[in-house]
């Protein structure tokens, strides 16, 4: 896309993109650190994730203000309009993902006092890595205007859903085996659910990138694999 006749307009838009990338970087970091803090039972790291969330929230506010300013002063149209609408949605999703990471960190500080539940830490960490990779690709797709990569991310969400399904069943089994596992498993389950929701939000972001690039929201349904809403007692 050619540059604007008003170069200040280009600088405004670039500045907002930079803020999104900065926010995205912080959120990726929060996801990985939250998962690591759980795996390593590292309370300090968990505390750091909780503290860093403030910076993420502040960036969201800043992005919203910048976007409002561009709308007021430049009356963006067409692709410029889509890019402003997109940053507003991306920043909102990133902020939510940051909150989920913070929530994982909070639960980590509780879990350190409990026995690890057989292998679930590493499963959660794999899930978090997968989501972080999806987020990274979404941000790359955003910066490069790459709808194909965004579509790829969109399709990958179902892997995260499947990991979540497996963990859900596992936690259920542990809790039935020994009621003393329930507290830990409840926390771990919420962590898994948090990561699964991060995947959904990342998928929304990828869809927003597709809208930015093509002007249209993807229409075909993506595979939905979170089946836990229909789980009954195992027989």
């Amino acid at each position, binding site marked *: *896309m*050619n*540059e*604007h*006749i*008003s170069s200040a*307009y280009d600088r405004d838009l670039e500045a907002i993109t930079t803020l999104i990338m900065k926010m995205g970087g912080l959120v990726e970091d929060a996801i990985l650190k939250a998962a690591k803090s759980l795996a390593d039972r590292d309370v300090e790291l968990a505390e750091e994730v909780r503290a860093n969330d403030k910076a993420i929230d502040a960036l969201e506010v800043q992005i919203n203000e910048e976007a409002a300013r561009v709308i007021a002063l430049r*009356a*963006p*149209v*067409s*692709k*410029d*309009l*889509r890019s402003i609408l997109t940053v507003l949605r991306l920043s909102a999703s990133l902020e939510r993902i940051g909150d989920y990471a913070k929530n994982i960190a909070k639960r980590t500080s509780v879990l350190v006092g409990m026995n690890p539940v057989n292998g679930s830490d590493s499963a959660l960490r794999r899930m978090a890595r997968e989501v972080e990779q999806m987020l990274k690709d979404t941000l790359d797709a955003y910066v490069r205007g790459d709808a194909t990569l965004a579509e790829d991310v969109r399709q990958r969400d179902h892997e995260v859903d499947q990991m979540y399904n497996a963990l859900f069943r596992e936690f259920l089994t542990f809790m039935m085996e020994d009621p003393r596992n329930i507290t830990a498993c409840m926390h771990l389950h919420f962590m898994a659910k948090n990561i699964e929701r991060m995947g959904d939000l990342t998928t929304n972001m990828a869809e927003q990138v597709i809208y930015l690039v093509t*002007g*249209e929201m993807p229409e075909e349904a993506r595979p939905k694999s979170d089946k836990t809403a229909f789980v009954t007692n195992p027989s």
Partner: protein
Amino acid sequence: MEDMYHADRAMSTQQDIKIKADKVQVYYADNHAIKDVDVEIADKTVTAFIGPSGCGKSTFLRCLNRMNDTIDICRVEGDITIDGEDIYDPKVDPVQLRAKVGMVFQKPNPFPKSIYDNVAYGPKIHGLARNKAELDEIVEKSLRKAALWNEAKDRLTAPGTGLSGGQQQRLCIARAIATAPEVLLMDEPCSALDPIATAQVEELIDELRQSYSVVIVTHSMQQAARVSQKTAFFHLGNLVEYDDTDKIFTNPEDSRTESYISGRIG
């Protein structure tokens, strides 16, 4: 409720074709100013022509009521029909045509006469009123439609040129609609007006849409976006893109349209 609103909007833009242009070429001597323009302009719709200076949008607009006839070196080819009638047919009287296809210009240009006479002039020469009472009625109706009646009713005998710029432009609109036209052409009608007067004229354009097919040439992207339902983008004499206004301003097909409306180097 939302659905009804959208259905209503969709209905209001799906109108009969009022003006149809087919392979229109315009030459000013050797200069090929309009190249192969095909367009269908709907009735009871505001259609905006946008494009950089010299792109041919005003030239094309002027073809629609044969204003280009007055320019000796100008040659128009192709077909332009209004309600299926060829307006370049030798049988068509351009004066009658211009009563049917009214025009408002960039600079308000009231006649150096009273407000009343400005509006009454057209109906008088076209014999649209049989007596003074009828003429009074036409003048009042036109001024009301142009949202000028309340400001002008107590000073109908005052000169039209004594009005403010925005009022003068509304007077010109009243004058244009006094001959009961079917199409209203507007060539940058707000470029000499302040934002308040502009908003009043835009509000008026939206009301006129109930009765007329309005075609407006504008340099203001925002104005095109605000008042029109259809937008045509002209570039170097070509009609590059013609579509629903919201499509043009959210997701245009052609990169030249995109560059122009978003203020990019094309």
